[in-house]
């Protein structure tokens, strides 16, 4: 029964990992669901929260692919709950799993090229149903690429061989991984900041940093402060545009120096 439920949950995270819509593949959701299926939801939630911090910047932008949160979340939860590993070990194990998951999804995304050409053929015949089937087949493959490895690992996770192997990791490694777990999130932050790549806006980043270092404001507070800053920032932009337009149309002999609002660095 657990096996069937685990298979279903893993399929859902696999679907979500490619579709990237409802976010079932994000660690904080995927680990929670896997934990619930394995009978220890609380551990799943805590592991999910920790992993989520690390994976904050894992995103599909353009043609680039994120490390695979789906396989990493489901399998590391299995290893922590069924294999009795620590949360710290679970996080360390998630990294190679995310890389393995990425390889698997690249594999599936290549196979799906075949469905693309099949869809072309169905289009020639005006066969809508056929094209829909190609779409669904691609989706199913993405589900299976998470579900099959997850189920396989679930079946061996409780065995002595796996546990002995995992438990034989020396203390300096496990403690070191825990130490690294404290700051591994900076990679995610860096990815998010780079996405918004706007060096002239970095002043807001420093404002957030300083407020967090020297005050006790919580994240909801930061959201509100951020919204206010955004409001003022947009107001200033609007004013600058007005000034520039006035300078253009008024023809006041360059009395108003046009503010430099260069749009070229927008993404």
């Amino acid at each position, binding site marked *: 029964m657990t096996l069937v439920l685990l298979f279903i949950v893993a399929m859902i995270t696999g679907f979500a990992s490619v579709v990237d819509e409802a976010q079932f593949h994000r660690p904080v959701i995927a680990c929670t669901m896997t934990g619930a299926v394995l009978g220890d939801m609380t551990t799943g939630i805590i592991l999910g*929260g920790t992993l989520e911090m690390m994976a904050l910047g894992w995103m599909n932008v353009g043609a680039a692919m994120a490390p695979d949160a789906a396989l990493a979340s489901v399998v590391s939860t299995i290893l922590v709950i069924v294999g009795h590993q620590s949360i710290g070990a679970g996080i360390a194990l998630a990294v190679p799993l995310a890389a393995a998951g990425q390889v698997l999804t690249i594999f599936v995304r290549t*196979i799906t090229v075949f469905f*693309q050409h099949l869809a072309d053929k169905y289009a020639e015949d005006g066969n809508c149903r056929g094209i829909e089937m190609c779409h669904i*087949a691609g989706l199913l493959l993405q589900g299976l690429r998470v579900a099959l490895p997850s189920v396989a690992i679930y079946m061996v996770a409780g065995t002595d061989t796996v546990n002995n192997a995992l438990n034989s990791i020396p203390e*300096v490694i496990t403690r070191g991984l825990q130490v690294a777990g404290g700051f*591994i999130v900076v990679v995610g932050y860096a990815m998010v900041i*780079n996405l918004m790549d706007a060096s002239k806006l970095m002043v807001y980043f420093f404002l957030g940093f300083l407020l967090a270092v020297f005050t006790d404001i919580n*994240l909801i507070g930061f959201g509100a402060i951020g*919204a206010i800053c955004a409001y003022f920032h947009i107001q200033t932009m609007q004013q600058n545009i007005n000034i520039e337009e006035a300078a253009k149309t008024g023809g006041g002999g360059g009395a108003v120096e046009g503010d430099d609002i260069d749009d070229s660095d927008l993404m």
Partner: protein
Amino acid sequence: MAEKKVTKDDLFWVFVRSNFLLGSFNFERMQAIGFCVSMIPILKRVYEGDELKKALRRHLEFFNTQPFVAAAIMGIIGAMEEKKANGADISEATLSGVKVGLIGPLAGVGDPIFWGTIRPVLAALGAGVALTGSLIGPMIFFIGFNAIRLATHWYGVQYGYSQGTALVENIGGNQMHFLTEGASVLGLLVMGALVAKWTTVNMPLVISEYDNSAGEHVVTTLQSILDSLMPSIVPLLMTFACMYLLKKGVNALTIIVGLFIIGIAGYAIGLMA
């Protein structure tokens, strides 16, 4: 001949299908099948026979953008296909042009807003609560994000369809620029706070140890010196280092492995704990 009209039901099904846009993502034409499948309710309504075949074929061409804002493109193209089916002079090249032309600007707005701001902020909020083991954490993220996402899909399809090509001109305008920059301001401020709040670096390496005049034992560690200068300075520098490496094209997983090695080495020599 009666006018061919897209119904409310058709738009509803486009909305439903748009939730699976990326399902058959492949390296050749990326979201092409997904886009075509999402458009089928409209195409079937306004075309038949050879016209339908042609329409299916042209929507199997390359397509790739941020999946939530893609719904607006579906609405716009739906409106154009409807006009075309009723005899308007819209060539295949125009349709492709609008489609491909919208990919860039909409991804340019969608990526920083959804992937860069809304998801990390809500995920961090949810994860922060999740660390206490409370189910509220995952729920905050899941419900919050999906409410915003579904609204974007729904209004994207509706608004795109009702505005049609008029929307194409708007997207390049100032409003979108404002929205993107505003979201970046909010996102960056929260990221700055997260760097300080949700990282732990402890460097207990002892620099000096002495008994002061009052007979108290005073231990100065590397961390206490850093804290008196600027708390959280180490994570801040690490963030900048990661940004630099990522810009240089270093794979994120490579950097993560590198940080794990720093953690292990730091613990082994007693620099970190």
